[in-house]
């Protein structure tokens, strides 16, 4: 018994060698399997597709979108709508509130596009200049512009001098791409070409300057359009969340006269309007003819027709 036990434990015996070989083979096989598993596991961690390991979960995972988003507001207009933006000349010592800045914005939510037409204030309408309509209120002004352009204007946002400066200051000023040198003592516009940050008072001066240009109010009207779209570009960045939207709407509620819409609906409207990229909104000044009381110039009718059908200016004007 003792001998046999002793023999089994001796490494040199046949039984001991066989046991050792078996153990070695097992150890080697186990190590190989472990290393292979470790390698596969490492590869799996590194992103390698392991058919057997990943197969069961492959389909399950595929239905998960890694990034999904939703941005929606209910109750806003789903169809084409037109907004009239008015800057009137009412200020201390000057009454009447004539519509010296008239811009019609057409928004097509379905096509996710918009266009803007600038109407010179001296445009003739019903025997008078069209800006006179605003002395009867924003709705009267909207009716006149609507008659001229041939589009239904549902909403009006009307600001006077104080309202305009208050709005611009309220949003922290605007960066405006000034197209030409401005040096006008009447309006107080002193700007060099290029991007300029303006406070409310400076933005008002920029919008009023007409003495620097041979065509006077025509260039001024176009410049107002530039300011509106530049402001929209900056506002759009701030309008990506509710606090930014609420801030602007509260400012409008305090500084602007609204027609056809209240602040509550303006929230829904603005979410649609500010989903558009202002850089892709054409800004076209109405073609005109004559001087003093301006008539419709060549191409004005086709411009309005292009605008009227879907709010989008597709042809070059």
């Amino acid at each position: 018994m003792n001998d046999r036990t002793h023999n089994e434990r001796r490494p040199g015996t046949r039984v001991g060698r066989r046991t050792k070989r078996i153990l070695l083979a097992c150890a080697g096989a186990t190590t190989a399997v472990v290393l292979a598993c470790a390698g596969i596991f490492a590869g799996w961690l590194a992103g390698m597709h392991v058919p057997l390991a990943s197969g069961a979960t492959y389909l399950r995972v595929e239905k998960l979108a890694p990034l999904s988003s939703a941005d929606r507001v209910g109750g806003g207009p789903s169809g084409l709508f037109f907004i009239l933006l008015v800057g009137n000349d009412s200020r201390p010592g000057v009454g009447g509130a004539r519509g010296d800045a008239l811009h019609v914005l057409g928004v097509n939510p379905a096509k996710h596009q918009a266009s803007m037409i600038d109407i010179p204030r001296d445009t003739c309408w019903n025997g008078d200049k069209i800006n006179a309509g605003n002395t009867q209120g924003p709705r009267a002004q909207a009716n006149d512009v609507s008659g001229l352009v041939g589009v239904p204007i549902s909403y009006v946002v009307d600001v006077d001098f104080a309202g305009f400066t208050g709005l611009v200051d309220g949003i922290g000023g605007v960066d405006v791409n000034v197209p030409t040198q401005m040096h006008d003592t009447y309006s107080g516009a002193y700007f060099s070409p290029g991007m300029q940050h303006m406070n409310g008072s400076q933005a008002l001066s920029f919008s009023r300057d007409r003495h620097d240009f041979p065509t006077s109010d025509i260039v001024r009207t176009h410049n107002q359009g530039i300011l509106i779209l530049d402001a929209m570009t900056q506002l759009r960045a701030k309008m990506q969340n509710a606090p930014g939207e609420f801030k602007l709407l509260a400012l409008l509620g305090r500084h602007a006269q609204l027609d056809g819409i209240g602040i509550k609906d303006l929230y829904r409207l603005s979410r649609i309007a500010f989903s558009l990229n202002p850089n892709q909104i054409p800004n076209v000044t109405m073609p005109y003819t004559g001087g003093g009381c301006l008539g419709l110039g060549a191409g004005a009718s086709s411009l309005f027709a292009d605008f009227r059908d879907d709010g989008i200016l597709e042809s070059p004007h």
Partner: protein
Amino acid sequence: MAPVHFPFRIKRLGAGALCGALVLAACGGGSKHSATDPTVTTPKVLAVKTSILRIGSVDVESAGPQEQIPTAVGKAVLTSAQAYIDNAMFSPLQNGTIGVHYPYLFDSGVKPAATGADEGALTDLGVGKVEKLSTTATPVALSALVGNLGDFMYVATNFDVVVKGNVDAGPLTITHHVELTFAPQGKAWLVTAYRVQTVRKLPTTTQNTTANAGAKP
């Protein structure tokens, strides 16, 4: 072939190494779940079943008189936001179905989209059941719009919710950036607008798959 003779020390070392390898392998296999087990990270703000959002910053923008958000309004909005989380996130992850109250959280203007086209972003229905859920949420930033007459027109809630858990493929992390805008309807405050962004992260092995899925229109 001559037999190989192993000294006792080498045998012990070999056995130790083998055991170590086996232990490592065992740990490695298990680490697919346990190394990044979300339950390791302690929920900071809310737990799944007893989750309670809390109010963070408050901003009131007014076109008229300056107002404070009434406690009742803040409470109603926060309760609705919590109901959204419970019905849109937790219920699908725990039960595989959207909570029954989910459609009633939205007003008629957005309900069709919330229960249709936007459901994939607003809810976690597509994920399936998840085990070992843990959740964290940022404090809710409240912002309100007050009209000229001092009436509260809208109250918006902004918050992030991070849900962690295990699916068959491994640990899953879902991050929801949520903005819900509520408007009063009678005595209730219903969601009238929303901005939601949902990011779902799966184990590295499945990232390519999810990326491809996400690239699909």
